[in-house]
């Protein structure tokens, strides 16, 4: 069953140099339980695509559907809080908060009903953060640890879709593999729809589906089957 459906999505914006067509007539379907890799060179429109899928912006043309409901008509902040977990290359943890507070924050925003602190600690443990580190400020962690905290934050509210923008971009190989392993597990064990934007070929290889962005055009690549 389709989770996210992009239908003829286009997006452009104007710079001093002129109009930039960041995304042209993109059509794709994303489902739960699979890892999707979107690869492409810098400026190809990957981040624009991620921003549109997260509901941070709306397409100039075309539509994005979440379980058949057009994002245009939805409360996109609520959509993001409840159904999207986002992971970034630079982790983007709030430096003033501890590891557990960072995770807890996403639960607060998602109006999580249960014990937020317990859930946050559970998620941190799930991604391999030790209990004694829970109350350390996020800036006191290594890059790999920070990214794991970011993943814990992204999955804490139990979203259906995980959007990861270059999640291993700042990590060494071991940590990268570790993170990729977590993402794959999220899709396959926890039935999440994981969409990864990446340069890394090894992630693309481990994805269930690979898509290529080229000058704003979304194509199926690497012999992976496009859904």
């Amino acid at each position, binding site marked *: 069953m389709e989770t996210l459906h992009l239908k003829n999505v286009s997006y452009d914006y104007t710079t001093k140099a002129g109009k930039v067509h960041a995304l042209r007539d993109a059509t794709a379907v994303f489902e739960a339980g699979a890892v999707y890799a979107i690869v492409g060179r810098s400026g190809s429109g990957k981040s624009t695509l991620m921003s549109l899928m997260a509901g941070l912006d709306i397409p100039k043309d075309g539509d994005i559907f979440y379980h058949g409901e057009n994002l245009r008509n939805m409360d996109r902040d609520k959509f*993001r809080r409840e159904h999207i977990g*986002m992971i970034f290359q630079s982790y*983007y*943890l709030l430096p*003033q*908060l501890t590891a557990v507070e960072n995770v807890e*924050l*996403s639960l*607060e*925003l998602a109006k999580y009903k249960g014990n937020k602190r317990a859930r946050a600690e559970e998620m941190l443990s799930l991604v391999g953060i030790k209990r004694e580190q829970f109350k350390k400020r996020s800036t006191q962690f290594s890059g790999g640890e920070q990214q794991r905290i970011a993943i814990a934050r992204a999955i804490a509210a139990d979203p259906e879709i995980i959007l990861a923008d270059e999640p291993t971009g700042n990590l060494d190989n071991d940590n990268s593999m570790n993170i990729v392993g977590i993402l794959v597990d999220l899709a396959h064990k926890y039935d999440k729809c994981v969409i990864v934007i990446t340069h890394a070929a090894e992630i693309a290889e481990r994805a269930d589906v690979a898509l290529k962005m080229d000058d704003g055009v979304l194509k199926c690549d690497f012999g992976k089957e496009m859904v």
Partner: protein
Amino acid sequence: MTVIRMAFRNLVRFPKRTVLYGLTVFLLVFSITVSLFVYRACGLAESTLEEHYVFVASLVKRTQGRNIPLSEIFKCTPYKKLLAFNVTVSEGEGVFPAGSALTELPSADRDENPTDVWLEGPGCPIYGVENLGLVYPFFSGECHITQGTALTEKGYCGEADETVIPWWMAERYGLKVGDTVNRRYLRQTGEFAYIYIPTEIVGIYATSSPSPNIENYPAYIPLALAETDYGKILPSATDAGDIRVERADFVLKNREDFADFVAFAQAQGLDFTSANLVFNNSTYDVLCAELQNIGHIALLVFAAATLAGVGTLIFLTVYLCRAREKETAILRALGMKKTKIYALRALEFALLIAVFSSVGFLGGRFAAGAVCDFVNGTVLARASASEEIQDLNASESFVITMPLEKDFNMKISLSPSQIADAAVAVHSLPKLSVNELGISRHPFYLFMTDSENLTATPEAMKAFETREKLRMDIVGVTDLSVFELTETKEFPENFVRIYVNETSPYANEESLFLSADDFGDYVSVLLYEAGISPDGGRLGQVKRYYIAGTYQENEYCSGDDILVSMEDYHKIYSDISVTDHINHFQRIGAVWEKE
């Protein structure tokens, strides 16, 4: 709740940012508070100075020994913006005697021991004053009332025989407020005689720095009373030009009135060759200039602090917002609404501004108090002690040409400024509005009616003297139209018109013979005949007034009161006093709301 918790957490977790921004807010609010409070204090001080400063134009003689006739003073008193004035006079050797006659009328014992009467010492000199608060030692604060009151409203309008005596007289003769003492004058008729008039002590004054010759500190009676006294003892003084004074002081509303007042006096024909008008603006000018300087400095500080502070605050706000764009993006990515993010930022700034503004305000207010104290101890202290003011205040002997300068110890403060008020309040001239009625009352006594024999025999005259006199107060009003009057007959135009109560037994009389004295209250004693004087000088001035009609009893006058217009009141008063129909002080005793 999330927003509030996050805002507090952010402020606590970013201490450097919090302190930097907070400090800027604190400094801005602190500087603004200090400067505005000091500016306000200066403004308040200026207003207080303006309000409390008694602007006095003094009419002083140009030549030593050539005093100013009262008629010149009457060229100044009609000035419309005149708030109060003072004239001090001393005529007829007016004293409180030192002997037994101080408290006992000589008539009581003249037959038994008349000699004592003649051996009385002069006692305490008496000055008649229109405004005790404008007599220099009282104005400057050197003298102050220690018991009782200053001269009262009733005294000032001539309705009550009262006096304020010096402390030394009270101590020497064991006098206290409420006691009655006899003022004594030397009557200057053909036969020299002393007259004694009982006077109630309403107040006792003392001085903070008595001069060696304490007997120079006189007793004061109201000028209105002195005028009638002089009327009895100076029959030769027929007009206002016969009485001369050293100076007269006129209180004006503000400094700008000085020039206008001079122009008015000039237009009235004041003789500037023998007299001059001088003003007491020095203290005011010195203090005002200093207050304005301090106020300008405070305004400059305010402007500079506001510009620099607000600029820095805007820069910091923009800088801090930009520095937190990443944080904003994260919160957006986590699904936080833009409005909530703005609310979070606004709350953080609001909390910072609220806390540090409060601290800045409190600190600024405290510092402003300290600045005020500093200014009081330096700039204003120097101004108050300036040579210009001190020279004017230094004259112990009170040079007659000296204007009424006061040594103000001005202090600015955050609450309304303090300024030393006059030790004795200045007695202001009543100003009437349309709905107000001015009333003056003076006790008169019925000497005789038409029905009685005007060509009385000496025996009959003696009987008049000894019988109990009926008190008939003359009540002058500024507007006769508020009374129900009945004109009883054709009446000559230029005559004084008196109205008696319609129920009065005298309503049908043609005229009444009125005297200012109840002969039981004073006696005169012939200087050379040892107190035996059945007629010589004993009779006060008796005047005949024709009855113009009757009035219906009302709240203003009743019983044996005689109603007259205010104009006629002044004429009657002039008849018994040393002034005349044209030149007289137009006093109003009380102001009533018209019914």
